[in-house]
């Protein structure tokens, strides 16, 4: 290959990285192998929390990270992680991600790291797998120790739950032993960390929020690409999204089948309760976020409005 890009990824190959795999495959085909995108899993090139540092240094050309891993590194995109935005599906999530990423605020924010966002890793809403008596109403979350980080944790706190820190890999045991009574993840992570094997119930529609995980490129490396190479890369993004979404749909089916197989009780809350939850946890957290952005000089109002307007 004339040009080789290294991509810093953590963990193993999974649904969460399928778009990057597809991107590499498409670019390779379109450029007759003259532009190679080489994936490095297992945090071999950098810890996930430091992928933006690596991009800024120029140690690798491409990386994936999640906004909430270090909210203060990338305040602008945390708008997509606010609780109770009410994003119905991955297609809508992609639409919002693209709109937000295209704003000057985000470009400037990521530009500080010499980074440019190529695409997102759209994730469905988080939901809880838990053990013990299934919650019948939101009141039942009072005093419940839950594994929920950042914004989701803050949202759960408003209904009286007790956010408890446990690392992802320890979550299975933590549920099993009662250290926490429930844990929130996206479906692929519930499968990966085997929480479903420890839990007895699953909340189908609590939807307190999700994480936003962009795939970025080093700005200089992107600028140094020949027109052909750059076109091959940019033209592959939509197909990579499509592949990712199709693959995640398969995974959702697998997740549903796993829930049935394990006989996990599905907890669905009624509309009134969800509205009350949203009122209690949504608005106050949004206002807090807006004030925080104002203090940081990030146009939070514009970003939030952009998201809200495009959800209707």
């Amino acid at each position: 290959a004339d040009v080789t890009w290294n991509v810093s990824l953590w963990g193993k190959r999974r649904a969460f990285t399928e778009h990057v795999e597809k991107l590499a495959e498409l670019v390779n085909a379109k450029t007759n192998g003259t532009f190679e995108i080489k994936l490095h899993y297992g945090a071999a090139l950098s810890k996930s929390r430091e992928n933006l540092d690596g991009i800024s240094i120029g140690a690798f050309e491409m990386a994936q990270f999640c906004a909430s891993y270090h909210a203060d590194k990338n305040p602008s995109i945390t708008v997509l992680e606010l609780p109770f935005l009410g994003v119905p599906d991955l297609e809508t999530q992609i639409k919002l991600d693209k709109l937000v990423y295209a704003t000057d605020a985000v470009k400037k924010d990521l530009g500080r790291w010499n980074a440019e966002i190529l695409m997102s890793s759209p994730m469905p809403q988080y939901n809880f797998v838990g053990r013990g008596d299934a919650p019948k109403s939101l009141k039942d979350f009072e005093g419940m120790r839950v594994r929920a980080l950042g914004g989701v944790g803050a949202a759960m706190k408003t209904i009286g739950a007790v956010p408890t820190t446990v690392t992802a890999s320890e979550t299975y045991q933590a549920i099993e032993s009662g250290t926490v009574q429930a844990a929130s993840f996206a479906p692929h992570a519930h499968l990966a960390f085997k929480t479903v094997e420890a839990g007895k119930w699953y909340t189908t529609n609590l939807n307190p929020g999700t994480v936003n995980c962009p795939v970025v490129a080093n700005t200089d490396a992107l600028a140094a690409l020949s027109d052909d190479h750059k076109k091959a890369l940019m033209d592959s993004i939509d197909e990579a999204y499509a592949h990712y979404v199709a693959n995640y749909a398969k995974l959702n089916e697998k997740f549903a089948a796993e829930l049935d197989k394990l006989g996990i009780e599905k907890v669905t809350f009624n509309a009134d309760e969800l509205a009350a939850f949203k009122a209690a946890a949504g608005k106050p957290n949004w206002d807090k976020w807006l004030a925080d952005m104002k203090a940081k000089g990030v146009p939070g109002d514009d970003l939030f409005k952009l998201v809200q307007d495009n959800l209707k």
Partner: protein
Amino acid sequence: MPGSSTSIHPDPHTPHQDAPTLRLWDGWVAKIEDSFNALAGLSILFLILLAVVQVVGRAVFNTPVPGFIDFVEQSMALFAFLGIAYTQRLGGHIRMELILSGLSGRVLWFAEAFATLLVLVLIAALINGSFDHFLRSWNLGDSTIDIRLPTWPSKLVVPIALSLLWLRLIIQFAGYARLLLAPDKAPVAVPLIESIKEHAQHEIEDALGDETGDISNKSQSRENVQ
């Protein structure tokens, strides 16, 4: 206090023997190292108490320490780095002495000085790079995943601790260089190679503590073996 004495010369105020300047520097840097290491030890005690509070709080009062993992991770920099120069002074970073212990005189001092010089280059690079790592979190922002603690204080510990190590290495390099020029002089400000027997004796002292008598005298005599 174990090993709170300097490697060769315990008292910075009596530079009456050979290499007075070197002894003086050795003594003063050793004082900083001792307090850094004490701080590291206390941070370990703090971690243990915090974890006990966390478990009891969670199990008995259903109130775990918010952001416990964030707190632990950020404070880890204290015990991971603050003792690094102290350990270097006492020759506590492991190495293979099989070949070195067969050398003596100028050859030995050359090997030691050369290795120290190479490590000086590495540590200089790392001071630079770790300060840059701190600077990024300071200028561009960075916070922990759960309760959004700023990460810069923890990152700043690294270049500070490495700078102290760099000073220690300079002193040791000077000590070795001095011996390279005059191999007959008594070693000053350098850890000496322990035979496997001396090493075993040291391990025994660590395990049995003051049962073997006053430990600081012991390690003093160990390091003064010539």
